[in-house]
């Protein structure tokens, strides 16, 4: 066996003690009532092994267990069952600048952070100048200033510079590339590629499929804690993308009795269609989205309209739109909505809609009808970090020179 990392069927269980939300929950029935404990397997029976020099990309939706897996691999937490066997020096970067103390100077923090990440004092001494140089000119001036006075950019640059000079056999990285300004990003990507080109083993979690494709030779696709696929990057990414495409975001119910809903309304059909450009496989920020809905109305002579919510994966509601209201009779009702391109930012979104009577009474709330992802797309920019915000509008925004005088 010459595998440097071998993971054999690890699982991680979390207990979620869900508090029942009762108004009359007193101290006593807290004690006497048995708590409802939900078990939740964040990582379930995951196995894979890597050889020296392998670069593994770990992909999957939010909640697929990527972060938990990284935490287990970097020994931050123990798996509930299974075994991890790693040979060599591991450095894990789940965050940039972990353990920085705001009151300490940049210089002191280099030593502190270096030691936390597993460097010895002599190693830090050796690389000190390189680290400072890598972090940029600005840092040199403020080397003896407490980092609480640093701008967030400087903070992150210093953190990354230290991490970049660790010299592990195995590097575990969680999307920390997406930091700093464009210049610094080029530098960090360059450094990552430099590390990747030699025989270091890297485990890299990312939402950015392009980065995974460029950097990794193997890919692990997690889904709800399970391994969906593990293999050569090209193959896994192709399957991943085509699966996303095949998942047409379509639901239809033939039988009124088995359809979701209640005695007033039931869902018949729902479809989300993104417009795709050229060779594009999944919706990206350019795509407009069309939502078609059909439902059975089971009561005559009702004034109905639809209220549709789009939520971010974090749970915030991005927007809520209402359809026009109309007097409708028993039968099938159809509604459609178009969301223009260049509106939603890249990310995962959830759609729910409710059927509303007389513009005030909710007859039924169809939750999580669609769960879709919008990929990133950029041209004409040198910035590769996560684009902030939930919306990504293209407004007219011009810049011009009005004078040559200073």
């Amino acid at each position: 066996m010459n595998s440097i990392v071998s993971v054999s069927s690890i699982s991680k269980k979390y207990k979620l003690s869900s508090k029942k939300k009762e108004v009359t929950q007193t101290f006593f029935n807290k004690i006497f009532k048995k708590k409802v404990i939900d078990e939740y397997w964040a990582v379930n029976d995951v196995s894979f092994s890597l050889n020296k020099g392998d670069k593994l990309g770990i992909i999957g939706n939010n909640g697929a267990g990527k972060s938990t897996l990284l935490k287990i691999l970097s020994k931050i937490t123990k798996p509930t069952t299974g075994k991890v066997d790693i040979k060599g020096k591991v450095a894990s970067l789940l965050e940039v600048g972990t353990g920085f103390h705001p009151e300490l100077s940049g210089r002191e923090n280099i030593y502190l952070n270096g030691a936390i990440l597993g460097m010895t004092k002599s190693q830090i001494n050796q690389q000190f100048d390189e680290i400072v140089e890598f972090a940029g000119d600005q840092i040199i001036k403020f080397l003896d200033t407490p980092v609480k006075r640093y701008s967030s950019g400087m903070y992150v640059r210093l953190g990354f510079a230290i991490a970049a000079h660790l010299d592990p056999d195995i590097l575990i990285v969680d999307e920390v590339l997406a930091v700093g300004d464009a210049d610094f990003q080029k530098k960090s990507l360059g450094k990552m590629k430099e590390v990747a080109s030699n025989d270091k083993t890297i485990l890299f979690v990312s939402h950015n499929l392009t980065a995974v494709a460029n950097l990794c030779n193997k890919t692990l696709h997690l889904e709800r804690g399970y391994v969906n696929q593990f293999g050569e990057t090209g193959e896994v990414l192709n399957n991943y993308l085509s699966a996303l495409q095949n998942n047409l975001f379509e639901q239809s119910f033939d039988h009124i009795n088995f359809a979701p809903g209640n005695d007033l309304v039931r869902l018949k059909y729902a479809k989300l269609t993104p417009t795709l450009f050229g060779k594009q496989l999944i919706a990206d920020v350019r795509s407009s989205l069309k939502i078609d809905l059909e439902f059975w109305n089971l009561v005559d002579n009702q004034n109905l309209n639809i209220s549709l919510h789009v939520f971010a994966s974090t749970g915030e509601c991005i927007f809520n739109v209402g359809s026009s209201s109309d007097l409708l009779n028993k039968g099938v009702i159809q509604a459609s909505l178009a969301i223009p391109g260049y509106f939603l930012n890249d990310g995962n979104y959830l759609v729910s809609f409710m059927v509303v009577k007389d513009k005030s009474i909710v007859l039924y709330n169809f939750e999580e009808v669609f769960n879709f992802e919008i990929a990133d797309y950029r041209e004409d920019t040198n910035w590769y970090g996560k684009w902030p915000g939930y919306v990504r509008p293209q407004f007219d925004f011009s810049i011009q020179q009005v004078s040559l005088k200073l």
Partner: protein
Amino acid sequence: MTFFNISSFQFSKSIELFLIFSKRDLSVRFKQTSLGMIWAIIRPISTMFVFLFAYKNVTNISNISGYPIQIVIYSGILFWNLFATSFQSVSNSILISSNLISKVYFPRMIILFSAIAVSLIDFLFGLLVYFVLAIYFKINISAYIFLLPIVILVTLFISIGLGALIASFSVRKRDLLQVIPIIVQYGFFVTPIVYTSLEFYLKPWFKIYTFINPLVGLVEFFRFTLISGYQVLSLTEILISVFSSFSIFIFGLSVFHFKKDTFVDHL
């Protein structure tokens, strides 16, 4: 060294990390203050004055120790502050470093040990003041002063042991954090800190008490190494306290050792 689980993290590196954490806590401690380390002295001195005030003006406690009451009180407080502050910071250390623990792996025990740095340095400054007091009251320094490092070590052991217990359990349930002030506040009065064990030395329950509260033996052992001719407890009683402190230390660290791998899941 499997007990400390540093097989993949070299021992020398653990020591370096311990030193750098200690240095961090010390250099942050008096940042942006003008008096700096002087604050470390002000605290025990002012506590001493509070009790002097109470003894002279409020109650009528007779000092049967045969030593100036200032010396008794100050040495007691010095000891108590070492125990109490290190115990408190060890207890809170894991929760305070939760961000670090959930992002990086390093031997978790380093956090416990480095939490005592500040208390130890404060103690050493306070000790200087003791010598000044001793000169002022013309009290000779004990011939057993060479045993002082041992008392300090055993005191730190019991603080770390108790602190490790509280730290291990409070990660999941925060109830135990409420116990800390109880131990620190009431412990101060039930241990001969501002008086000596002579006050209840002849009580029938005293032997058992030294076993239950090892701090009794430790504080008298501490005074024994500082004050010339001071010997209130027998060697056996002191050894019982030392033994019991050491057991608490081992027990606390063992509990910590078995719980440490899942801290992150509850933080």
